[in-house]
């Protein structure tokens, strides 16, 4: 069973097609990167997989559960760290983590255990009692991902997790993501080529709502005849654009 599967997944907003007939499979424990320019359809794809948006047509499933008809089951299995830092600004780091544990109905003992685990993983000790609004961008991102992870999801969606972070904060987050590899399935959207290159098992390059190329980095390099993900991306985007204008 795939952790994620989409079949002809399509999302249209009036005349604009945000995602077009997407066929994807993501294996359990895989870190799958969705790469693309703004408006390529990465976030829309994640929103449909996280049951935040209904597909116009096609199917998508998470761990065998249909995102449309079994959304309650899907929601129990996923965690999401949205593009903007989605934290309760007036709550402390500890209270934000407790909030999520409360929503998932964990017992006080279980909550305490999970908070200790997240605190250790993200080194949150020094900011545990600080209000979220006083945190730097890096700490907020860490908290946001910790909130997504605390419910121990089978599938974690990371929507541009390092956007706007300085290089040190980004590298620190990478370490955390790398430490999770193989343990849970992760879908990462990013603009940063080196991030996708460094972290992902497989990469899908999305252009205009479609997957223009898909594979491991060596496979993509072979397909495009370029080396390095940035060159691969540019070549594939150019070829895709040319193909579209020829049609």
């Amino acid at each position: 069973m795939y952790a994620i599967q989409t079949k002809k997944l399509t999302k249209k907003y009036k005349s604009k097609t945000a995602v077009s007939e997407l066929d994807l499979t993501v294996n359990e424990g895989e870190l799958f990167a969705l790469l693309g320019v703004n408006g390529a359809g990465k976030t829309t794809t994640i929103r449909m997989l996280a049951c935040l948006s209904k597909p116009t047509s096609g199917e998508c499933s998470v761990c065998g559960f249909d995102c449309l008809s079994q959304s309650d089951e899907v929601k129990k299995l996923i965690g999401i760290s949205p593009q903007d830092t989605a934290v309760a600004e007036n709550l402390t780091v500890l209270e934000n983590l407790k909030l999520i544990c409360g929503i998932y109905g964990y017992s006080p003992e279980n909550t305490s255990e999970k908070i200790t685990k997240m605190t250790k993983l993200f080194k949150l000790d020094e900011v545990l009692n600080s209000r979220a609004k006083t945190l730097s961008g890096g700490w907020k991102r860490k908290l946001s991902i910790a909130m997504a992870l605390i419910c121990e999801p089978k599938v974690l969606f990371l929507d541009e997790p390092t956007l706007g972070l300085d290089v040190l904060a980004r590298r620190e987050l990478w370490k955390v993501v790398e430490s999770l590899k193989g343990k849970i399935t992760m879908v990462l959207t990013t603009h940063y080529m080196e991030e996708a290159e460094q972290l992902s098992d497989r990469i899908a390059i999305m252009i205009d709502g479609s997957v223009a190329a898909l594979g491991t980095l060596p496979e993509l390099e072979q397909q495009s005849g370029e080396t390095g993900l940035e060159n691969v991306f540019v070549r594939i985007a150019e070829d895709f654009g040319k193909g579209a204008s020829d049609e």
Partner: protein
Amino acid sequence: MNKIKAFSVRNFKEIIRDPLSYIFCLGFPLVMLVIMTLVNDSIPPEAGMTIFRIDNLAGGIAVFGLTFLMLFVCLTVTKDRSGAFLTRLYATPMRSGDFIAGYILPTALLALIQILITLIASFIVSLITGIKLDPVGMFLALLSLIPAVILMISFGLLFGTLFSEKAAPGLCSIVISLASFLGGVWFDAESTGGVLFDICKVLPFWHAVKAARMACAMDLNGLFPHLLITAAYAIVFITTAIVVFKQKMKADNQ
């Protein structure tokens, strides 16, 4: 229940940790209570104007304070909607009913605390000014204000759901002004009469204030018609707010 409790605790803390909520929801109404008591002292008895006497003022100020709570409910909802916080929660097993209860319950508690403080302050003023306020009547006033609490929370929820972070507070300010003016908090609507009084009678604010005043005066016969009208408005608006919130949540997830 766990989901509602967790979200309610968050919303409760979100409001009480905003220093502005103390200034607007408690400070301002209490300052107005003192100022209007001083104004009342300056009015000669032969003028026969009792609108600012503490037994009339207490209920009016309590409703006035609730209008600011409406503003804070509205701000909490719009802030959650404008950021990605609700997006995160939409992806959890929380349902629309959990969100609605999570917004209503803590603010209802805050409203009751706010009314209690206003009534205690009014009682202290009554002791100083020598105008008798019956503690039983004040307890009745607290109960009589429950429909007004629900009404103001529904306005906050409704505006917060329908309008943006920029538009909603402006709209709330209009309701605050309307509620205090057409509620007859600052003038005697009945004595004024005419079209203005007709408008006051059509809207729920005057009835909410009047119910609280009647309760303070232990006039149960006078209390019930106003209480029923306010309760009817509260039921209509809370139902509308719930339906609109559910629809908006559904639309956000389209």
